[in-house]
């Protein structure tokens, strides 16, 4: 393990016209670290997450994945090749799963590895089995997304992202669209990833989960990181008034 960050965001800023959604944010995430980003909706946390794989490009600032600048300024064609290569190393899980409805679970998982890594059908099938085992859904390998519950869909989506063997995983409110009773099964899979020291950046509304699993918590509001630190500090003893207000509202319903 090196001390060099695996994800390095430097002075990230983004605006839509005069609306600044991210204001000069810097963030380093080391290998194996698990970072939660919390904050009210509209605070810019998803935008920041989506800037990491350049899905939502920054207006200014840099994003680095190890030695590679993700949001390099390149001519269109070169940029396309560059970003496609970079994205293979950054797994992403979405609020609405975004499984491919026309493909069964196996093909959802193996589509990208087959296309991008030139692996054989046998290898791809073995990969699907391996990843589905990890998320406990091997028996659903021939199912189509519409035949799965929300929690199962999200676990397949995680397996799909993991099949590319990413260096870091981004979770964009992965459990927000789930019925309450289905949240736990997805959380369990994420906890298991944490135990395997997967580097993860998690945008979440679930304070309990953030508290249990994460090494660091960032509280964002109005495009800035208001406060950051270990979960014990942020949740038990936040320094900032805005953080306290937010947590008071959010923790009331829980526990």
């Amino acid at each position, binding site marked *: 393990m090196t001390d060099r960050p695996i994800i390095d965001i430097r002075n990230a800023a983004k605006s839509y016209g005069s609306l600044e959604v991210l204001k000069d944010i810097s963030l380093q995430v080391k290998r194996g670290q698990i970072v939660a980003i919390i904050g009210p909706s509209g605070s810019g946390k998803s935008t920041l997450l989506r800037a990491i*794989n350049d*899905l939502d490009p920054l207006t200014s600032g840099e994003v680095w994945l190890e030695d590679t600048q993700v949001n390099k300024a390149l001519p269109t064609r070169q940029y*396309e090749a560059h970003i*496609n*290569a970079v*994205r*293979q190393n*950054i*797994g*992403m899980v*979405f609020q*609405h799963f*975004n*499984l*491919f*409805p*026309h493909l*069964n679970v196996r093909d959802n998982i193996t*589509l*990208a590895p087959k*296309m*991008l890594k030139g692996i054989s059908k046998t290898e791809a099938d073995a990969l699907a089995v391996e990843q589905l085992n990890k998320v406990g859904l091997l028996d659903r390998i021939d199912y*189509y997304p*519409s*035949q799965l519950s929300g929690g199962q869909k999200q676990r397949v*989506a995680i397996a*799909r*992202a993991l099949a*590319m063997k990413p260096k870091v995983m981004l979770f964009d409110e992965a459990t927000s669209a789930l019925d309450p009773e289905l949240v736990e099964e997805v959380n369990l899979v994420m906890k298991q990833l944490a135990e395997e020291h997967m580097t993860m950046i998690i945008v979440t509304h679930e304070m309990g989960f953030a508290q249990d699993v994460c090494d660091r918590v960032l509280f964002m509001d109005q495009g800035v990181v208001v406060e950051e630190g270990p979960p014990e500090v942020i949740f038990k003893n936040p320094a900032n008034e805005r953080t306290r207000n937010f947590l008071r509202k959010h923790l009331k319903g829980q526990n």
Partner: protein
Amino acid sequence: MDTDLMIRIFPFFLKAAWVTIQLSLLSGAMGLMCGALGAAARLSRSPALRFIGATYVSVIRGTPALIQVFILYFGGPQVGIQLEAFEAGVLALGFNIGAYMTETMRGAIISVDRGQNEAARTLGLSRFETFRSVTLPQALRLMIRPLGVNINALIKGTALVAAISVVELTYTAQRYIGSTYKPFEMFLLAGLLYMAIIYVTGLGVNWLDRRAALK
């Protein structure tokens, strides 16, 4: 109603129906090609291509199909394009329905959920790979029924080329009115045959749609 006459004359109408079917098949195929190209142009990253696509659609949809047929068939020779009536009919109808199909296809493609594109791109798939294996397979399913509607309009639209003397159903009906003086029977026969063609086409579209349905 003179049913005896209708039965006697029926074989001639069948022959005419075959011409209508040929017109529909050929111009339908051409329309699908124009539609695919048009949709690609309209969704292109190049402003020039987008402009060409948009112009194609607005010119064709903004003028009567009959005028388009006339311009090609009667106006063509003036600029050195000499076509048989049947050829001119196929080209004009195909080019015409292609503009409607452009919009159908474009609509189906852009109505595939944006999250699908994002999921594929974050896995590392290129724009083209994403289109081919994620967007297009879903868009094709969405476009079967609306393209069926376009084909339905096209089949009925083939009647227009009667105006340039292509011996299809409508022209045939008009011609036999001249000798039989029975417009009701003649147009009824033509109408029934159009309906039969459209009915069978509809069955085909339904079958395709069911076959392609997502599990």
